[in-house]
């Protein structure tokens, strides 16, 4: 068996800055994971549908537009609609501290702010999928 951790990296919303998303994609690849990168300006439905078709273990969302409190819970809901509640959701970008708890309540497992070491993200994801 040759199971790999598969992760969708997506950029919801209208901001056009995907450097952070690309840095994370690269770090996860270098950690031996298969990263599906979907590009800019994805709607919640597009992201959830891609997650379904690609059978990913996790979805990483990069968002800098400030619309995270609207978009991220909607993405979580779109995933649930497709029976993907077991897919891990994590987020990164410009997200104020006071917004982190509401996002966690909405099903976002982790929020990584600017300056997060990519090793930290890799360790977090590995920890979620490692056999005990």
């Amino acid at each position, binding site marked *: 068996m040759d199971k790999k951790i598969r992760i969708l990296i997506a950029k919801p919303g209208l901001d056009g800055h995907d450097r952070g998303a690309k840095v994370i994609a690269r770090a996860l690849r270098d950690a031996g994971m298969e990263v599906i990168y*979907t590009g800019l300006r994805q709607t919640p439905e597009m992201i959830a549908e891609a997650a379904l078709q690609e059978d990913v273990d996790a979805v990483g969302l990069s968002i800098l537009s400030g619309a995270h409190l609207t978009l991220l819970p909607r993405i979580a809901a779109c995933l649930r609609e497709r029976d993907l509640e077991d897919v891990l959701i994590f987020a990164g970008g410009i997200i104020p501290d006071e917004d982190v708890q509401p996002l966690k309540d909405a099903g976002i497992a982790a929020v990584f702010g600017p300056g997060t070491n990519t090793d930290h993200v890799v360790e977090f994801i590995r920890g979620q999928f490692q056999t005990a």
Partner: protein
Amino acid sequence: MANSKLPEALPALVDRALQGDRRALSRLISRVENGGTEAWSALAAIYPRTGRAQIVGVTGAPGTGKSTLVSEIAKFTRQQHPEITVGIVAVDPTSPFSGGAVLGDRIRMRDLAGDAGVFIRSMATRGSLGGLARATTDVVKVLDAVGFQLILIETVGAGQSEIDIARTADTVIVVEAPGLGDEVQAIKAGILEIADVLVVNKADRDGVQSTVNALHTMIDLGKAPTSVLHHGHLMTIAAPPEAPIDRWRPPILKTVASESTGIAEVLDAVAQHRAYLTHHPEGQQRAKVRAAIELETILRDTLLQRLLDRVGPADLNHTIEQVAARAVDPYSAAEQLLS
């Protein structure tokens, strides 16, 4: 690497996928991709339902616009024939250093998002070198079995060793673009021989005509070698000089995929090639070669697995160390393991 929950029983997953459950289809593809005996039993179960889809491969060097062309072919097909569902398998390379991969073909396929008649799956090569992943053919079978009528396969596009696609697809489209290299590149690239349809994409750029001319020259020069079965073995023979006149000659078409130009002509050529294969003996011959290669691959994998199961890791490691220390030659070592 295990997920937190137990995997679903395979027969139930196969049933649900065949009934049109997209979630089940996606999971089944993963199980087939991950391989092993479980994958084979699933493939054996779905096999009777395969063989109905039209399978089209798209290959060519990086930057020629394969993803965009695949996306446009799917979009055009869905617009003209809404009853035809389209499955896409897009293959990107696995990093030989980390074993990871960034699969980015969906970026160019965003026009297809929201169409329930299209299913896109990205695959990493996972160490395979022929332009496809080892399991690509098997994943195509799954898409075929659940009823996708047109299946498009996009290869890695490393350029010169993409021959696996010819063993998987009914029709192979080779994509070129102006200005990527001189005529010598076209000679070097072994992929011209596998082309059933040649597309010069980005045809709004300078140098289109010289690329088209170079391809015409190459096709006139080339007498494509043919694979034949000889006493059960695959052999390559040069096409005889008196090759039948009605043999397929790859058309050379110009497209600007990013502007949806020339796509209808590409699909016409694909349809003509399909008709050719059903009438010309070459179609039968191809099917036979494909079956032989497939059977040979499965036999090789099975025999190796059985042998490794019997020998066990300890004995195998011991033998490897002996060979590494030059205490025994690898030929005798293999002979010992087999006996």
